[in-house]
C-alpha cells in the first residue's frame, strides 16, 4: 500500500497552491504533513481524495490515479478532510452504514468504530444535535468503519477539547499497530512528534523536507536541557564540571539551561551525576522539540498564517 504524488500541482489563476509535489509514502506508518496555513497541506489531501482536480501531475493510491480511476484508488482509503458536516437528520449508525453500503462492504466494524471515538452512546441520535468536536469524532469513525488500509486525515484533532485530542492521538497510534498507512496533516508539532514516524514539510506549495522523526530529531537537536530543582542552585561551577556539560545558563535560582556535547547517553549521564551529587531534580527536559527547531529553521518567518 502506498500513496504517491508525481509532479502534482494545483494552480488557481497565477497562484500555485501546490507546485510539483513528488512524494511517495509506503508501508505501515504514520506520516505527519506539516506546514503553515496556506502552505498547500489541505490542497494535497483534497487532491488525493478527489475533492480537487490537479492542474498537472497525478495523485496515485496503490497504483491507481485518483483522477482517472477513483473507485479503485479510494477503495481502501478512509478520509477525514477539513471539518465535514453530515446530513443532520441521519444518525451515526445510518451515516456509517451509508459509507459501508457505498463501498459494498460489511458493516461489522461500525459499532467498534463508534466505540473507539466514544460516540457509541450517541449512535441513534440525529447528528444535527452534535457539537463540532462530536462531528469530528464521527468523521474519524466514518474513516475507520470502512476498514481502511490507508487513512488520509486533515488536522484530525481540530475543534476538539484537550482530552478529545489526546484520545484521537491514541487512536491513531493504535491504528499504526494494525498495519495502516496514515497520512495526516497537522500544524501541531508536538502532535506530529507524538503520533508520527515520519514527517513531510511543505511551504508555499513546495515540499521542503521528508524524513523520519528520528532523523529530524538527530539533525535538528539542540543539545540542551532545561533542569528545574526543588531548592536554589548554589554551586553552578560544580555542575559545569560534569562530564559533557559545555555551558550552564542560570534562568532562575531554581532553573537552569545546560548545553552539552554528545547524544542521549551524555544527556542521561548528566542527569545521573546531578542526582548523585544530591541535587533534587524535579524536571529535566529537552529545551524544545527538534521538530520545532526544524520547522522554524526551514519555514521560520515565512509562516503565512
Amino acid at each position: 500500500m502506498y500513496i504517491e504524488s508525481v509532479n502534482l500541482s494545483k494552480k488557481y489563476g497565477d497562484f500555485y497552491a501546490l507546485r510539483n509535489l513528488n512524494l511517495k509514502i509506503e508501508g505501515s506508518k504514520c506520516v505527519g504533513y506539516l506546514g503553515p496555513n496556506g502552505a498547500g497541506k489541505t490542497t494535497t489531501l483534497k487532491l488525493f481524495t478527489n475533492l480537487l482536480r490537479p492542474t498537472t501531475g497525478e495523485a496515485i493510491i496503490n497504483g491507481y490515479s485518483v483522477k482517472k480511476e477513483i473507485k479503485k484508488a479510494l477503495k481502501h482509503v478512509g478520509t477525514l478532510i477539513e471539518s465535514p458536516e453530515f446530513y443532520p437528520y441521519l444518525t451515526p449508525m445510518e451515516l456509517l452504514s451509508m459509507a459501508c453500503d457505498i463501498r459494498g462492504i460489511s458493516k461489522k466494524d461500525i459499532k467498534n468504530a463508534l466505540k473507539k471515538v466514544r460516540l457509541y452512546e450517541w449512535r441513534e441520535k440525529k447528528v444535527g444535535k452534535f457539537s463540532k468536536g462530536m462531528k469530528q469524532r464521527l468523521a474519524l469513525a466514518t474513516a475507520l468503519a470502512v476498514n481502511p488500509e490507508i487513512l488520509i486525515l486533515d488536522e484530525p484533532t481540530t475543534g476538539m477539547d484537550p482530552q478529545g485530542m489526546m484520545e484521537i492521538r491514541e487512536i491513531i497510534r493504535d491504528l499504526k499497530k494494525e498495519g495502516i498507512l496514515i497520512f495526516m496533516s497537522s500544524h501541531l508539532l508536538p502532535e506530529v512528534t507524538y503520533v508520527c514516524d515520519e514527517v513531510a514539510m511543505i511551504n508555499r506549495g513546495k515540499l521542503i523536507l521528508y524524513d523520519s522523526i528520528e532523523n529530524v530529531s538527530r539533525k535538528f537537536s539542540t543539545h540542551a536541557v532545561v533542569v528545574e530543582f526543588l531548592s536554589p542552585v548554589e554551586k553552578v561551577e560544580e555542575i559545569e564540571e560534569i562530564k559533557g556539560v559545555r555551558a550552564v545558563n542560570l534562568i532562575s535560582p531554581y532553573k537552569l539551561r545546560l548545553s552539552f556535547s554528545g547524544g542521549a547517553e551524555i544527556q542521561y549521564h548528566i542527569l545521573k551525576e546531578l542526582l548523585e551529587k544530591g541535587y533534587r531534580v524535579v524536571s529535566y527536559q529537552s529545551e524544545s522539540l527538534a521538530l520545532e527547531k526544524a520547522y522554524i529553521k526551514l519555514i521560520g518567518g515565512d509562516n503565512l498564517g
Partner: protein
Amino acid sequence: MDDKSSVAQMFTIAKYQFLNYIRSKRIFILLAITVAISVTYFIVMWKYVNPEYLTSNDYISRWVSFLSFLIVLAALFFGGDAIASEYGKKTGYFLFPNPIKRWSILWGKFLASYLASLIMILLYWGVAIGDTYMAKKEISVEVFYSMGLSLLYLMGVLALTYLFSSFFKNSAISITITAIIYFFVFNIVDSIAMLTGVEPWFSITYAGGVIENVLKNPYPSHIQTIGGGGIKITMFNVPLEMGIEIMVGYFIISAVIATLLITYREMK
C-alpha cells in the same frame, strides 16, 4: 472484495437520500400540502362546478390545471438543494471522498427526488381521478395520456432543477433562483411570446401545456390570433409531439450538463 457497481452505488445514494427526505419531514410537508390542495379542490369542485354540463375530460382538466404548479413545487422541494447543499453545507466532505463516481451521486439523488415527487403527483392524480369518476362515472384513456405526460414533465423540470442545484453552491440561492425562473421567468417568456408572436419552443412551461391540452377534444389548434384595439395577441398551444420533444430535450440537455458540472466541480 469486488467493486460495487456504479449503478448499485446509485441506488444506495437514492436509498439514503429518500431516508433523508423522510427524516427531515420534507416528504410529509409536501404530502400535507398536496392533501390540503386536493381537499380544497375537492370542495371547490363539488360546490362550484356543475359536472352535468362538462365532459369527463373537461371536469378532470380543472384538476389538471393545478398540476404543473405541484410538479414545480415537488421539484423545488426535493431537488432544489440536493447537490448545492453538498458544497454549501460541506456534507460533500463526507460523501465525495468515497470510491464513487460523481454521476452515481447525482443520479442516485435524482432517483430519490423523482420517486418522492412521484408519490405526490400520483396521490394528486388519484384524488382527481376518484373525484372525476364519482362525478362522471367514466375515465377516458386521455386521462392516462395526461398522467404519463405529467410524469415526463416532472422529469424535465426535475432535471432542470438539478442543473441549477449543480451550478450553485448555496442551497437557499439555488432554491430561490430556480423558483424565480419557474414562477416568473418562464411565465414572462410565455407572455412575451403572446405579444410578439414568437413561439416559446424553448420554454418548458410552454411544453407543460400538453398535460392539459391532451384532455381537450379536439386538440386545440397550434396558433390562435386574437386582435382588437390595436393589439394582436397570439395564443400558442403546444402540439403534442413538440411538447414531448421539448420536455425530453430539457431532460437530456439538463441531465448532461448537470452530470458534467458535478463531475468536474471541485470542493475548494
